[in-house]
């Protein structure tokens, strides 16, 4: 995973609530066996509407997306995070995210930043004309107009994002603990192993 510590630039002021994974990347795009190239299908249905933010030259290649409540609800498809990354988005700011999406975003170095609705409303305004700056180290979102919003992030996730940690590699360091658990549980609950013939 690529390390990420800050994001600076324009933001798509989407603002929409309940942006589900079928909106982010519709099912026909899920047939790929690779992680890249999905940006073309990102927000396909929204982009069919003339004047949509994604095709507005003012926001061309914006690295940030601002959305409403419950962003990324719906499916577990990580293709949603891949598609957004492929579109060049590095951070999403919303009042809340679905649990699965924020996990998937994190695993792909895409920042999912939670801020209260009032902050979102202000950022939506700023995004019309100016850049937004996100700093992971200080956990802040700032604007050229002295706005400063502090966000929470799980310390472990913060560490992994800033250092670009490979989570599987990290877990494999606990192989012995996993083996100990397996030995214990197969003694206590021998029926746990399924009869897969």
């Amino acid at each position, binding site marked *: 995973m690529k390390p990420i510590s800050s994001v600076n630039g324009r933001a798509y002021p989407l603002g929409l609530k309940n942006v*589900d994974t079928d909106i982010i990347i519709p099912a026909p795009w899920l047939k790929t066996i690779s992680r890249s190239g999905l940006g073309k299908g990102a927000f396909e249905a929204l982009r069919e509407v003339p004047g949509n933010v994604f095709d507005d030259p003012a926001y061309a290649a914006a690295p940030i997306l601002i959305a409403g409540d419950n962003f990324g609800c719906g499916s577990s498809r990580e293709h949603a995070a891949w598609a957004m990354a492929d579109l060049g988005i590095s951070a999403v700011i919303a009042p809340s995210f679905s649990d*699965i999406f924020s996990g998937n975003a994190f695993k792909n170095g895409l920042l999912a930043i939670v801020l209260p609705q009032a902050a979102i409303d202000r950022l939506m305004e700023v995004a019309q004309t100016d850049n937004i700056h996100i700093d992971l180290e200080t956990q802040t979102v700032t604007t050229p107009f002295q706005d400063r919003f502090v966000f929470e992030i799980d310390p472990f996730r913060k560490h992994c994002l800033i250092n670009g940690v490979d989570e*599987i590699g990290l877990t494999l360091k606990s192989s012995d*603990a996993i083996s100990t658990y397996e030995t214990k549980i197969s003694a206590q609950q021998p029926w746990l192993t399924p*009869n*897969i013939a």
Partner: protein
Amino acid sequence: MPTPQTLYEKIWNAHVVEQRDDGTCLIFIDRHLVHEVTSPQAFEGLRVAGRRVRRPDLTLAVPDHNLPTTARLDGNGQHVPIADPESAQQLEALERNAPEFGIAYINATDIKQGIVHVVGPEQGFSLPGTTIVCGDSHTACHGGLGALAFGIGTSEVEHVLATQTLQLTRSKSMEVRVEGALGPGVSAKDVVLHITGVLGASGGTGHVIEYTGAVIRALSIEGRLTISNMAIEHGARAGLVAPDDTTFAYLKGRPMAPKGAQWDAAVAYWRSLATDAGAVYDKVVTINAADIGPSVTWGTSPEDVLPITGIVPDPSAFADPSKQDAARKSLAYMGLTPGTRMTDIEVQNIFIGSCTNSRIEDLRAAAAVLKGRKKADNIKWAIVVPGSGLVKHQAEAEGLDRIFIDAGLEWREPGCSACLGMNPDKVPAGERCASTSNRNFVGRQGPGARTHLVSPAMAAAAAVTGKLTDVRELTT
């Protein structure tokens, strides 16, 4: 005396391999279901890193999302090739990856093949008290058996394949208690649609929900799976129903379930999992069964639920301005006008299937309504897609297929079908579908498709009249 614990806490605690100082836990995963859509990049990741699958014996692969539901073998018993090259490529990838990594694979023409969430319980692969994951958000389905089951993304699929664990933080717990008894024509699907309407699409975010109360206790396993299946639609990480005698009776004798003395030991353990008296949930929501009617969605979020006797709402009636905006967009997409009676809405398509409603009971409920009737003339496309080959076989043994075919519906091969617009089964743009699936998102059943989520009996009723219909008018 030990502190009273909820079912969720008991399962969680039993699976902690390691706990970090910040509270994140390394959680052991007992069961991993793999399908063709969310796994190719995970296997590729393993290959690139030179990693193997840690516990192939806890992993089961089955194709479902992409498979066409038309005949899979021709008259000579030869495989019918899959027309869409990308779908074919994804299915071939799973067929290759499973043996390469030593994973059991149920192929497309095996009678055991079906939707992952139908196959797991049916085979006894899914068990109470286990942790189950799958790269599909409706994995919570298995919670109907009392398993802590949740959907994961592809990176997590890779993580589980490589380590048989996940790094997780504990969720909050919520009890959704459904008291009373269901009225005629009201099924598990109506209960879960109603719950989603009450909680909202994000009402359960950050929580694992345990469904309790007299209504849940009285439900069959099929019904409980339907409820837990849609936990994600109200935002919950997972859904749970405490295992009881109904659960044990369902699982006993299933091919992959424990046998003999092992079975007895397992049941004794499963009985100990029920939430202790005095255990505290972070949140409790109580629902009265008397408030639940046959339900239907009007918008493009599963929270947009109404009883079938309702009328299309006026967006300006919602208190929340962002919901007003969302409702306006939903109605524009759905082509609906506020004030229209739900029962006046014509549909052109019927889909009976998906991991929410494709088990034998669902098909029986639909067949009971369709028996001796015909689909309305304005219904252009109506399909019944059993959840697995075994469900299909059982339904045929009971003569249900004849009822569907005589009524003018198509009887298909098992798979995800029109639940998601990925395989050839799609709803045409601008047309409506009364669907027993779980999502009414924009474009979910195909670009421009308009979905109304309903129960199997309600879908059957809509097939008969050609519009959304109160099933009670056909059955009483």
